[in-house]
């Protein structure tokens, strides 16, 4: 078995500590300007990566992040980043509470469906008819169109929750509808994306596709029905009989990795297993808030910065910046999402201005979009210019969401 040399291991540790310390410093600085943490983390990645440090001081960049020159360190860092994305998806699942969708009923279902269907269709249609705008080969047209539709339809639940809290509408009807619809968006979006990743690649026939659909549905139903019942029985026992919070953390993280390993084994991406495990565990009423908080904090403050900084390390944002793609992505993202969500909310009985506020609230893509894009880039589903456009779109939609929501809510109040 090949091992890292002491020098390689030192570089590996130095790279991680640099990413963690600088991303924290950036996040704290960004907060003063009201920027989401993820923005600061990506900016730190851009500074440390090929875009800036790689151009200004290539010898320092290559020494600190020797992706090209040192296979051992590169593999170790890649493995860590892969684990980070699995943990991020696990926490994304933990945050989804299906009960919130059921509580909001018709309003959430209509808004959720509208905010998924319209952006998905608009994204799919644009990618299907003009793939050349994105530099995509016609042979990959279908998978790319599916991905692009999914990327347009997803929402960023944590960012949205934070926006609602900042606007003090967290517990209003608009807030509840936005959260419930975002849950639906995320659940459907990750299911669809897992399907796309599973069917991506050469020699995938109809049988493979149908098997993939069956596996995804069977695993989801099993974990969300049987798995949840079992977890609801085990969790109280663990919490009262094993060490606290060690017992719950071991069970939760162990279940996450077990499910990730299983889905990877059956040729569905590991993120899917982690995500569904998160939904099943997070939905349990027996999961104590402290345990949920520990997992959340650990992932948010250790794995998330590593992952988001790594994005800037892998891509040259200046070299791969393409104005046309950025504009197309922004236009499709804004129009599809806002139109679909507003229409859904209107059909469910909301007033026009409130429905528009819901539409702009759901428009925030944030970290979720970036994770999605990063996985698609790793899988070779998209090119670097598309990825850069998706990152820009995620940041722009997250930053503009709050002021636009506020504008329409104020207009609503003025009308009243």
């Amino acid at each position, binding site marked *: 078995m090949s091992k890292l040399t002491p020098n390689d291991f030192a570089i590996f540790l130095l790279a991680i500590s640099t990413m963690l310390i600088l991303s924290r410093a950036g996040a704290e600085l960004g907060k003063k300007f009201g920027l989401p943490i993820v923005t600061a983390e990506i900016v730190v990645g851009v500074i440390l990566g090929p875009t800036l440090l790689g151009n200004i001081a290539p010898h320092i960049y290559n020494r600190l992040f020797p992706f090209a020159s040192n296979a051992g360190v590169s593999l170790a860092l890649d493995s860590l980043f892969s684990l980070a994305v699995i943990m991020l998806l696990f926490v994304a699942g933990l945050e989804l509470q299906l009960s919130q969708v*059921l509580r909001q009923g018709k309003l959430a279902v209509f808004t959720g469906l509208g905010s998924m269907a319209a952006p998905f269709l608009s994204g799919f249609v644009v990618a299907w008819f003009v793939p050349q705008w994105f530099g995509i080969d016609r042979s990959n047209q279908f998978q790319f169109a599916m991905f692009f539709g999914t990327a347009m339809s997803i929402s960023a639940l944590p960012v949205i929750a934070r926006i609602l809290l900042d606007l003090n509408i967290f517990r209003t009807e608009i807030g509840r509808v936005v959260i419930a619809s975002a849950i639906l968006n995320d659940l459907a979006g990750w299911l669809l994306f897992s399907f796309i990743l599973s069917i991506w690649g050469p020699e995938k026939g109809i049988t493979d596709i149908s098997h993939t659909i069956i596996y995804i549905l069977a695993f989801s139903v099993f974990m*969300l029905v049987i798995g949840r019942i079992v977890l609801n029985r085990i969790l109280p026992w663990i919490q009262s009989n094993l060490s606290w919070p060690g017992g719950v953390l071991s069970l939760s993280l162990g279940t996450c990795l077990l499910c990730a390993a299983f889905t990877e084994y059956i040729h569905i991406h590991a993120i899917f297993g982690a995500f569904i495990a998160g939904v099943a565990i997070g939905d349990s009423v027996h999961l104590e*808030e402290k345990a949920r908080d520990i997992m959340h904090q650990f992932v948010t403050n250790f794995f998330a910065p590593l992952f988001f900084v790594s994005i800037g390390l892998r891509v040259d944002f200046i070299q791969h910046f393409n104005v046309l793609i950025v504009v197309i992505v922004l236009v499709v993202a804004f129009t599809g999402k806002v139109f679909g969500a507003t229409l859904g909310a209107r059909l469910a009985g909301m007033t026009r201005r409130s429905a528009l506020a819901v539409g702009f609230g759901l428009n925030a893509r944030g970290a979720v979009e970036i994770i999605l894009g990063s996985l698609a880039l790793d899988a070779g589903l998209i090119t670097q210019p598309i990825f850069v456009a998706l990152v820009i779109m995620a940041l722009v939609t997250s930053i503009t969401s709050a002021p636009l929501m506020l504008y329409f809510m104020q207009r609503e109040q003025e009308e009243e």
Partner: protein
Amino acid sequence: MDPRGLKGRSPFPFEMIGVMVSLSAGSEEVLAEAGYLANIFGARLLLIQMGKQTTKLQTAFDTIYERTGTNIQEAARVWLEEMTVKALLTLCKEHSVDLLILETIQREGVLRYYLGSLARGISRAAKCSLLLLTEPKVGGTTFRKIIVSGVSHPKTSLTLGTAVYFAKQVGAHAIAIVTELDQPTLSMATADMSTVDTLTNLKQQIVKDEIERIHGIVECCHPEGLKITEEAIFGRLGYTIRQYARNYGADLLVINSPDAKYGIIDRIFTHDMEYILEDLPCNVLIVHSRNSRH
């Protein structure tokens, strides 16, 4: 079908109280409770006689009425052959029942819970208020410790008004209003809060806002003579108040009726009222607002 114009009418006072009469164990106790409450509320009793109408069955029911001291002269009697949720609800609607009293067990077996018993089924779909009694007594249950869910919802003011009315009529002296604040969603929103102090201050502000909101509603319910306490707790909606009611040793938990008819999916992905129906912490009064305004 709506003889007294129930739609839009306030859920209280209770003018017609419905109760199911059968030969099963516990029926006499529920009947006695219903008679006792009808007397207190000055309501008319609707005796829903379960089974096919026969002289023999009527004689058996008459014996029960005699034993429980039910005043059948002032009560209305109807037969219900079909023991289904739909048939019972139709009957309640036809007779303008304001409050339906049912006996129910505290916790049902897994299979029975998922398939849905009559009492639970009615709780999920009723168009009138329901009183679920876990341990009905011939001498009448004493309702001293009453907890009301003060969840942020348009129906809550009516539920609170009904609880105040109920408490005054049954001679309770205090009501605890408990509002639940969704902890998991809040945790997600505050994951990147700057400091512990910021988070603590935010939570304190949320609690303060909630208490003020409840206070505003209570003032409109004429709670004179009752000691009202208000509390806001973080946790999962439905589950947290269930645990609170159990620990508090409540005699009655008063909650809103669901916004829509609950189905099997609500039992699989348990939420809100389903947490309470899953394992009743005490007697439960589900207030149906009938889309009225307080």
